[in-house]
C-alpha cells in the first residue's frame, strides 16, 4: 500500500493526487482523442457517452454530493436544448453565445425550482422535482411559437466561426465540453462550496450548526446542476437532431438517476462510469438481439436440427420485444441496489483495496450502518 505524505498545504490544492495519477488521466485523454481513428462507426454513440457524462456530473453534484435527489433533470435538459435551438436558429445568435444563454436560462430555472425545494427533504423533494418536470414538459408541448409544439423542431449541425462541424468535430466538441464540466466541478468540490455540499449531504443539522448557510448552498447546488444540464442539453439537441417534447420525459430522468446509482453515488468517476454504461447498454442490447438467438440455436442444434430451429425462433421472438430494454434497465438497477449499493466505482475501490491490503482485507470495511428507528433517520 502506497502512502502519500503531504508536506505542504499546496499539495491539498493539486488537481491530481500525484504524478502517477496525472499520467494515467493523460493517457486516458490521449486514448479518447485516438478513438475516432479506431472505431469510426460508433462515434455518434460515444459522443452520447460524453453528453450523458455531463448529465451524470450534473446529477452527481445534486444527488451524490448534496444529497438532493431530483427526478426532474430531463426537464432541465429539455430547457437547455430548446433554449439553445431557439437562440441559435430562430434568433440567429452565434453558437457560443447561444449555448451560454441556454446555460444561464437553465441555471435560472434551477434556482426557481430550488427555492421551494429548500423547505422539503427526502422523498418530498423528489416528488416536487418530478412535478416541476411534468409541468415544464407540458409547457414545452404548448408553447408553440418557441418550441414548435408537438410537431417538434429540426436541429441543424453545429456551426462555429463559419465552420460546419462534422461527426468527428462534434465528437471532439463533446469531449471538450465534458472536460470543461469535469474541471469546473472538480474545482468546486475541492473548494468551500463542495465541502459545504458534502456536509449538507451527511447531516443538515450538523452543517447548519457549523455555520453552513443551507439555503444559499442548496440553491447554488441546484443552479450549478441545472447549468451543467443546460450545456448538456445544447449538445444533446445536436446529437438527436430533432427536438420533440416527448423526449424529455420522466423516463429519461430515471435513466439519469440509474446512471449515478450504477456508477456509484458520491464520486465523479461514478458519473462517467454510469454514463458509459447507460449510453452503451442499448448498443450492446441491439447487438445481442442480432446474435444471441443464432448462438443459442446453434448450441441447441446438438439435439437435432428441429430443436435448434424452435429454440432459435422462440428466443428470437422474445429478444425482438421492444419492451425488453426498459426491463433490462430495471433489472440492473434492482441488482445494483441489492448487491452493490456503491455502484461500479464502489466495486472498483473494493477490488483495489483488496489487492493493496492483500491478505488482510476485511469485508466489514465497507459495511453500511442500518437504521431501524425513525428518530435515527432524521438527519
Amino acid at each position, binding site marked *: 500500500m502506497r502512502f502519500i505524505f503531504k508536506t505542504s498545504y499546496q499539495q491539498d490544492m493539486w488537481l491530481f493526487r500525484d504524478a502517477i495519477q496525472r499520467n494515467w488521466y493523460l493517457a486516458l485523454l490521449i486514448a479518447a482523442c485516438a478513438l475516432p481513428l479506431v472505431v469510426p462507426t460508433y462515434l455518434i454513440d460515444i459522443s452520447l457517452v460524453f453528453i450523458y457524462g455531463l448529465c451524470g456530473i450534473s446529477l452527481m453534484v445534486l444527488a451524490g454530493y448534496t444529497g438532493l435527489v431530483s427526478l426532474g433533470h430531463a426537464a432541465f435538459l429539455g430547457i437547455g436544448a430548446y433554449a439553445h435551438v431557439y437562440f441559435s436558429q430562430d434568433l440567429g445568435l452565434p453558437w457560443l453565445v447561444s449555448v451560454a444563454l441556454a446555460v444561464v436560462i437553465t441555471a435560472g430555472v434551477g434556482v426557481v425550482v430550488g427555492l421551494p425545494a429548500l423547505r422539503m427533504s427526502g422523498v*418530498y423533494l423528489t416528488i*416536487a422535482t418530478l412535478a416541476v418536470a411534468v409541468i415544464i414538459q407540458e409547457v414545452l408541448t404548448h408553447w408553440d411559437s418557441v418550441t414548435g409544439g408537438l410537431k417538434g423542431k429540426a436541429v441543424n449541425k453545429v456551426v462555429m466561426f463559419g465552420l460546419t462541424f462534422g461527426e468527428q468535430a462534434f465528437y471532439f466538441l463533446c469531449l471538450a465540453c465534458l472536460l470543461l464540466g469535469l474541471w469546473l466541478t472538480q474545482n468546486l468540490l475541492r473548494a468551500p462550496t463542495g465541502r459545504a455540499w458534502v456536509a449538507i449531504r451527511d447531516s443538515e*443539522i450538523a452543517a447548519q450548526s457549523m455555520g453552513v448557510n443551507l439555503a444559499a448552498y442548496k440553491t447554488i447546488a441546484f443552479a450549478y446542476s441545472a447549468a451543467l444540464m443546460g450545456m448538456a442539453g445544447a449538445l444533446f439537441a445536436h446529437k438527436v437532431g430533432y427536438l420533440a417534447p416527448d423526449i424529455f420525459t420522466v423516463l429519461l430522468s430515471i435513466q439519469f438517476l440509474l446512471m449515478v*446509482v450504477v456508477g456509484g453515488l458520491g464520486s465523479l468517476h461514478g458519473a462517467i462510469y454510469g454514463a458509459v454504461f447507460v449510453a452503451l447498454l442499448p448498443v450492446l442490447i441491439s447487438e445481442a438481439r442480432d446474435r444471441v438467438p443464432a448462438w443459442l440455436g446453434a448450441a441447441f442444434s446438438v439435439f437435432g436440427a428441429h430443436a435448434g430451429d424452435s429454440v432459435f425462433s422462440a428466443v428470437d421472438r422474445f429478444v425482438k*420485444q421492444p419492451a425488453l430494454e426498459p426491463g433490462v434497465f430495471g*433489472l440492473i438497477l*434492482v441488482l445494483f441496489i441489492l448487491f452493490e449499493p456503491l455502484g461500479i466505482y464502489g466495486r472498483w475501490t473494493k477490488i483495489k483495496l483488496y489487492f493493496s491490503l492483500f491478505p488482510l482485507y476485511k469485508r466489514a470495511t465497507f459495511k453500511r450502518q442500518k437504521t431501524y*428507528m425513525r428518530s435515527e433517520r*432524521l438527519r
Partner: protein
Amino acid sequence: MRLAAPDRPAKEGALLDIVLQLVLNGLAVGCIYGLVALGFVLIYKATELVNFAQGDLMMLGAFICYMFVVWYHAGYWVAFVLAIMIVAVFGAVLDWAVLRRVIGQPQFAVVMLTIGLGAMFRSFASITWGSEIYTLPTPFSARATRLGGVTVSYEYVSIIVGTVILCAALYTLFTHTRIGVAMQAASQNQLAAYYMGIPVKRVFSLIWAISAAVATVAGVLLAPVSLIDVNIGFVGLKAFAAAVLGGFGSIPGALAGGITIGLIELFSGAYLPPGVKDVAAYVVLLIVLAVRPQGMFGTVGRKKV
C-alpha cells in the same frame, strides 16, 4: 388518463347540473387516486418505504383480472377475487425476496429499487399481454341512470362504493385490531417492536400483500373508465400528489387528497385552457409542498438535539 366523461360540459343544461356532474365524476376519479395513494400510505406507514411501483402493481392487477375474464372466460367477480389473491401473494413474495433486504438503508436506495421494479413490471406486462389497449367488460359497463339533470354511470358508482368500503375496512384494521396496532408500532421503531414480540418481518409481508391487493382493487375499478394498457401505472404519479397532499401517512388523508386532486382535475379540464388539466394536480402539489411541507393531515418531525 383517458376518461369516458366528457372534458367539457355541454352548453345547454343548468349550471348546477353541470357542476354536480363534474363533482360526481371528480369524486370517482379522485377515489381511484385515493386508492392508489392508500397503497403508498399503507406501506409508508408500516415500513417507512416509499413504493414507486404502486401504480405498476395496479397495472398488473388490472391485467390479471382482464386475463381471467377475457382469455379464460371466468366471471367478473371470480376474476376480481382471483386477481386480488394473486397480486397479494405476489406483493408478499416481493417483500420477502427483495424489499426486506433494503430495510434500514437510505430512503433513496428504496426509491431507486422500486423504480427499477416498476420498469420490470411494465416490461413483463408488455411482453406477456402485449402493448395494445384493452377493455375489460364488467357488470357496470355502459349502464347509467339519470338523477335530475345528472347522469350517474354505474362504473363511477362502483368506484365510489368500493373505495368507501375498502377505506373503512382498512381504517378499522389499523386502529382497532391487534395486528393494526402492531403495524403502527413497527413503523415507529422496528427494533423495539421486535423486542416486544411483534413478528416484524411477517407484519411487513402482510402489509405488502394488503397494499398490493388495494392496488389491484384500484386497477380493476379503474379498468372500465380508463382502458387497460401497460402505462396506466403512471396514474401512480398523480396518486403520489394525492398522498403528499394528504400527508403521506394518514389513511383518511390519502382519500381526501385523492378526491381533492380528482375534483381539481375535472374542474380545470372544464373551465381552464387545454393542457392545464394534465398539470393541475402537480401545480396543487407544488403549492401545498411550498406552503405546508407536511401536507394537510401529516406531521413531519425535525431532529431535536
